[in-house]
């Protein structure tokens, strides 16, 4: 949509799967509408055994293939939008890449480090774009912050404090570390460019209905002595404007401090009903698809790339270990995708 030449024809998209953590269905809520609205893409077919797959196919007037594995091999598609059940994502994404498709993979891209590493290896071998749906890094404030930090505006950054808090909603049974934490961890890595060497994690407050964490505090040690702390999870309904997140970053550097309200831009309207916030940016999911389209048509890796999802998966896995042991966890030097990843170990 912006900043690159249009392809000669829209890229053909296979919507594969309508599932996610808990009750999530980002295919229906996010990717289907965004692909449909984007001039660079057209939905060619739908795959999945969920009821939403059938209704989407009927609504769009495109073929439905119940078996995702079959569809990924057979359907004439440039791009597969992978939104199958989390435990099936690695297998589906790898198969799509091996069949020469480009891949958009829902968050979380994989349930663990080995699965994320397998996708990254397949993407590397196939030479295809594999974009994890870390769409929050396209929030206008975050994009500006990346540019400012990358341009030296705060000097050498040495600390980031981040809050990413969502209303009560429907906590995922697996815990919010594998769900919401992906976004702020990805952003902190994207802003600093510094890999994480050490992770300490605490849960805060009451757990969700499944007993898994609803809110967590992550304390990360990065390369070059950079540190970050992330408060992420669920609060009460109403803590952010409808459809938005309480999302902010404070980036401290040797030359200054950048205070980012990533929930903006919003209009504030005050009246008899109280104050309301009306967001007015064009949205981070359309921006994510712009990036997918640009990477495919320009023949370059996407930003974010599946390697970024692998880096996030390592942090999340270490955080889970830290929650279990109560101790900080060192992450071994990052192996290249395809090699056997080292298991996180609690610090002695």
């Amino acid at each position: 949509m912006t900043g690159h030449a249009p392809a000669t024809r829209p890229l053909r998209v296979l919507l594969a799967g309508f599932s996610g953590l808990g009750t999530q269905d980002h295919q229906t809520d996010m990717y289907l509408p965004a692909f449909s609205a984007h001039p660079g893409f057209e939905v060619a077919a739908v795959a999945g055994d969920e009821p939403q797959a059938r209704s989407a196919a009927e609504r769009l007037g495109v073929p439905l293939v119940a078996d995702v594995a079959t569809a990924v091999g057979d359907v004439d598609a440039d791009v597969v939008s992978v939104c199958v059940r989390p435990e099936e994502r690695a297998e589906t994404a790898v198969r799509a890449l091996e069949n020469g498709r480009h891949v958009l993979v829902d968050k979380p891209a994989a349930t663990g480090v080995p699965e994320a590493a397998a996708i990254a290896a397949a993407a590397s071998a196939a030479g295809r774009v594999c974009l994890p749906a870390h769409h929050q890094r396209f929030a206008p404030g975050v994009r500006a912050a990346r540019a400012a930090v990358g341009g030296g505006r705060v000097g050498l950054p040495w600390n980031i404090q981040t809050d990413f808090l969502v209303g009560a909603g429907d906590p995922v049974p697996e815990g919010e570390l594998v769900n919401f934490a992906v976004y702020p961890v990805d952003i902190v890595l994207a802003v600093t460019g510094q890999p994480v060497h050490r992770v300490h994690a605490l849960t805060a407050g009451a757990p969700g209905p499944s007993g898994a964490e609803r809110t967590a505090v992550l304390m990360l040690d990065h390369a070059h002595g950079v540190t970050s702390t992330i408060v992420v999870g669920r609060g009460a309904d109403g803590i952010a404007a409808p459809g938005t997140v309480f999302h902010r970053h404070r980036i401290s550097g040797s030359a200054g401090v950048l205070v980012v309200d990533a929930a903006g831009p919003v209009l504030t309207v005050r009246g008899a009903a109280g104050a309301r916030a009306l967001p007015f940016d064009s949205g981070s999911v359309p921006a994510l698809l712009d990036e997918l389209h640009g990477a495919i048509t320009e023949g370059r890796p996407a930003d974010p790339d599946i390697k970024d999802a692998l880096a996030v998966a390592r942090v999340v896995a270490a955080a889970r270990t830290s929650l279990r042991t109560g101790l900080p966890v060192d992450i071994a030097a990052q192996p290249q995708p395809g090699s056997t990843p080292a298991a996180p170990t609690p610090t002695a």
Partner: protein
Amino acid sequence: MESHSAMTGESRPPARPLGIVVVGTGFIADEHIGALLGRRDADLVGVVDTHAGRAAAAARRNGGVRFTTDLAEALSWPGVDACIVCTPNGSHHALALAVADAGKHLLIEKPLTITVPEAVEVADAFAAAGTVLMAAHTHRFYDYGRAVKTAIDAGEVGRPEVVRLAILGDWIWPDWRAWVLDPKASGGHALHNGVHLLDLATWWLGARPESVYARGRKQTAAELDIHDYLEMVVRYSDGSVAVCEMSRGHRTGGVGLRDVMVLGSEGLLTLPWNGDGSPLLSERGFSQVPAPGGNGFAVQLAAWLDTISGQEPAMPVHDAVLAVAMGVAAERSMASRRPVLLSELGIPDRHAPSPGAPALDEGRTA
């Protein structure tokens, strides 16, 4: 009982104003003396400083009160009931014991002491003497500190789960010779300034701290012996967490950055990063015009005087001991790079009441 309270608006002077000696005449002493000069129920009798010239100058500035370099001499002056100690942190232990031994009340700058055994010894000495001991955790008495506490206690956010508290600013200390930069004199930054945040967050939450995980940074110079940036994450027994940052290593162009966030089961409380100040954008850049507000030192002084006159302490001795323990835990955590359990620090049960319980023994005559 007489009430000295500026917090309740009542004020009726006792028959004779309380006679007070200020020990240590650095910049923070001027804040306490300023608060003192606004009261009719307490008088500055004299000042003590190890440096005779400084003591004389402070005495002269304040109406020609008495001065000495010898605390024992000051404690023997007629009409002395209490002391305000504003000396380097490492001297607090010995000075506090001398005040307790003389049977005087004490308001002492934070931290109470720089080690846990010293804090316990001082607390016990005042309990035995039956006089009032209060550590100057002044942020409890600032408008914002009280407003957040009132909101939490009123249930505005439901059950508090995460507190974020950051007080960040530029380098304000003198050169390498500043005692604050000497860990032996200051206890380190976690004891020097960190205790402000550790105490305030703990007071807000009303919960018992279990462990501290701290990360520090020597941002202004690698050769520093203290961490000018501190991040101290406290875990409480009720599952809540506080993220406390204290910094003199930021570069904010002279603008103080304060961040307060309380995430609760039913809401989210925030304070704008610039507090109650008004931004001033001018040809000289960005600055802030602070809004006039309550004088935290005056409110704190009133609370101390209230405690001396028999009211429940606004800053209990146990909390001052706990603040020292949390500061020590933060320093140890930075050294070991691991969370430090408060239970490892040897706080006796008599100084670790359960949070919210009535204070049983606050070192004063009932």
